[in-house]
């Protein structure tokens, strides 16, 4: 497997900005997917994804837990999405058409928790999920690339699924609790 997020972050901080490329490559798919969910528009999501990565790079010195790069990146992306949402809303508020351009749920991260749940996975499982789905490697290709038996790959993915499911259930419960708390 390639270097860990922590190692790439450290290399960027040590004066190798080109290594940020690997982090962009690793997370562009899930970040784009997350932002598409938030913004409801692919081109806006792409623009926001670029901006998120650039802001992340600029703020790398402030990242306290480099191993949590992806969840931190999602936090930045969430803020960028909100800025875009507000900006578009400001310019389109008088337009009925705005309702079709803006996602109804653009301000509701709970609608798009999958990427956040992936971010919460331990690194090994997270990378396996990213490679399988966002790099679109088959299990056979994963086994070859990682030099692992096929059975180890599928078992690891099974455990990753189980953790993802737990995480999603926990988020759903938390969301319900918040909603119930907010009821008058």
């Amino acid at each position, binding site marked *: 497997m390639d270097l860990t997020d922590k190692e790439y972050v450290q290399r960027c901080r040590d004066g190798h900005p080109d290594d940020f490329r690997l982090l962009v*490559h690793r997370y562009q798919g899930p970040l784009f997917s997350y932002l598409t969910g938030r913004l409801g528009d692919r081109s806006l999501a792409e623009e926001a994804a670029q901006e998120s990565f650039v802001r992340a790079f600029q703020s790398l010195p402030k990242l306290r837990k480099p191993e949590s790069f992806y969840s931190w990146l999602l936090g930045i992306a969430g803020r960028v999405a909100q800025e875009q949402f507000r900006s578009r809303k400001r310019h389109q508020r008088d337009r009925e058409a705005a309702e079709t351009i803006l996602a109804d749920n653009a301000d509701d991260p709970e609608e798009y928790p999958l990427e956040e749940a992936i971010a919460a996975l331990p690194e090994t499982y997270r990378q396996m999920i990213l490679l399988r789905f966002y790099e679109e490697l088959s299990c056979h290709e994963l086994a070859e690339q990682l030099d692992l038996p096929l059975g180890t790959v599928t078992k690891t993915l099974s455990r990753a699924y189980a953790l993802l*499911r737990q995480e999603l259930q926990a988020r759903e419960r938390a969301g319900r609790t918040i909603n119930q708390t907010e009821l008058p």
Partner: protein
Amino acid sequence: MNCIECRDELVARIEGLLGDEESLQCQAHLETCAACRAEYAAFANLHQQLVARSHAAADVSIVEPVMRRVLAVHAEPEKDTIMSILQKHRWGLGLGAMAGAVAIILAALLSVPKTQAAAVVVMTKGAEAAAKLTSIHLRGQVRTPTAENFGYPDPASDFVSIELWKQFEPDLKWRVEKPGRVAVMDGQSTVLYVKPLNMGMKVPQPSSSAFDTGWLHKIANLSNTITQDRDNAIAKGWKLNLAEEQAADGRAKSVVTIQAKSDLPDSDYLKNQQFDYADTRRVYRFDAQTGLLEAVGIYLTRNSGDVLIFEVNQIDYNRPIDPAVFRLDLPANVNWYQEPQKLTDNEKYAAMTAQQAARSLFEACGREDWTEAAKFFPMPIPETLKQFLGGCQIVSLGEPFTSQGAGPTDQFVPYEIRLKTGETHSYNLHLRKDPQTGRWFWEGGI
């Protein structure tokens, strides 16, 4: 097969990767265990979601546009610098920008005053007219100190000529030149030559812009520039205006004016010191019939009044450029910029603060100890600089400060020195901490 073994095999089952015997065992367990059946159903649902998400993101590739911006952020900006390596490319909005812009423009046209809406239309037409460039040649003038790189507006300086040749096809090449300074990208490498210092810097790779020429390249990339300015005007609420004029030959001109605001706060040291960080009024003059941009004027916006700092008055579109333009013949004895190397006593210098480094640098110059002073320069010290700083004395050094527009390891040290002529000279010494050696190096500000 028990529950633990079964759950480990669920992904293999979903992916159709189980052997016959394992498949039968798994199936048998699922038929008897409701909990594992529920887990299997949940996994299958999760799998579908992941597949759908990955398909939706499959054609996204933002690595290069992001890295252009990241490397520009990493390298920029260098007040007074002669060592800015990488291009600045802040305006890249990415592959989907145009599609997004359509919706924005539509909304803008319906929600802004008529004049602004008309300006948006003119700019859109201008962007389309310049969308398929094979080459461009710009000639104009800029107010900038002769000893500076290309990117620093200075209302107090006289105009100097500035010229850009850019070939987009068959391969990207460019040249930017002003008196005493030329930067050339020949398709293989990028070179800056500073004639008064006989100093050169070579980046062994092609670049879309370098050495603080990014702002001019932005203008040369006309379609992107016009589009970007238009979108920024809409998104950021910049004042946008349109005037119709008639030239002496009777042709109608559309003049769009944009009041652009820098992202830097007014208190930042680099605010208004570089084109990228300046509040400016930009005036674009388009031919009303063809939509082609014919002239550009950029005014620095100040409380004391706007000052014209740059204008383009000749734009040649798609004319073949002589290949010789992209060749640079240099003297054999050029002082080439070199990557800093670690010293035997490197730790001593790496432990310095920016202020301590500034003190050591000026004290070495005062003693005319050029070996010591060279430890703060990433190139042979130019003779002109030796003559200027030799024998100087420190009058005062202030507290270092940073700028949001500068690199992450850049600091500026305010100083006043007495020169051997008896005159005093004060400014802000620009130092950058080199990540490889940990030492501070001169970036400018003398």
